[in-house]
């Protein structure tokens, strides 16, 4: 017989998965009904719906997992995210300045025809998030080494 805590955990996971599926398929059905099946204008809205479903699953997942962590693990995550991601933002700033040399010619050369303003923005956002996650991981390893 599973404990009430275990049942609550299973219910929360179900909410995350079912909610994400409903958001994705529900939004996709509405978008396709409005724009038509092969309309190019539907593409960004479908991408947004996909992102919303993933964001919902991630948010519920975080809400489920966070209270289940003990206080030291919560401290570890708070520390590693704050220190690691802040350090990553500061350390990647010089790269941004390098990329701006010659008006970003270095990036434009690599992206070619795909180098639209939207692509540059997305690349910058993804790069920063990646750097923050990497910095957080490094800080977490450092915390673990110091506290074990």
């Amino acid at each position, binding site marked *: 017989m599973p404990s009430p805590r275990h049942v609550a955990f299973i219910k929360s996971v179900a909410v995350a998965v079912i909610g994400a599926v409903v958001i994705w398929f529900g939004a996709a059905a509405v978008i396709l009904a409005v724009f038509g099946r092969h309309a190019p204008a539907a593409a960004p809205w479908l991408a947004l719906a996909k992102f919303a479903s993933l964001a919902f699953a991630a948010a519920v997942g975080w809400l489920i997992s966070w209270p289940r962590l*003990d*206080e*030291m*693990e919560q*401290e570890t995550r708070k520390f590693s995210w704050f220190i690691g991601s802040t350090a990553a933002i500061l350390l990647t700033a010089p790269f941004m300045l390098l990329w701006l040399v010659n008006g970003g010619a270095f990036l434009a050369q690599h992206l070619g025809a795909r180098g639209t303003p939207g692509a540059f923005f997305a690349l910058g956002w993804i790069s920063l998030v990646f750097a923050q996650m990497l910095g957080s991981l490094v800080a977490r390893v450092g915390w673990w080494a*110091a*506290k*074990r």
Partner: protein
Amino acid sequence: MKNHLRAMRAERNWSQAELAERLDVSRQSVNAIETGKYDPSLPLAFKIARIFDLPIEAIFWDQ
């Protein structure tokens, strides 16, 4: 912050895992508290004191 946690746990023949289960924390947390590498929050310190039936200041002291 220093503490008598390891000695008090040994007196009761509890493993770190057993104490962790009673405190609803991980075994790594118990180890970190025992070795003084992690200072527990006030609620956790009170919980530890309740489990050992002692006042907090009998378990923890400022170094």
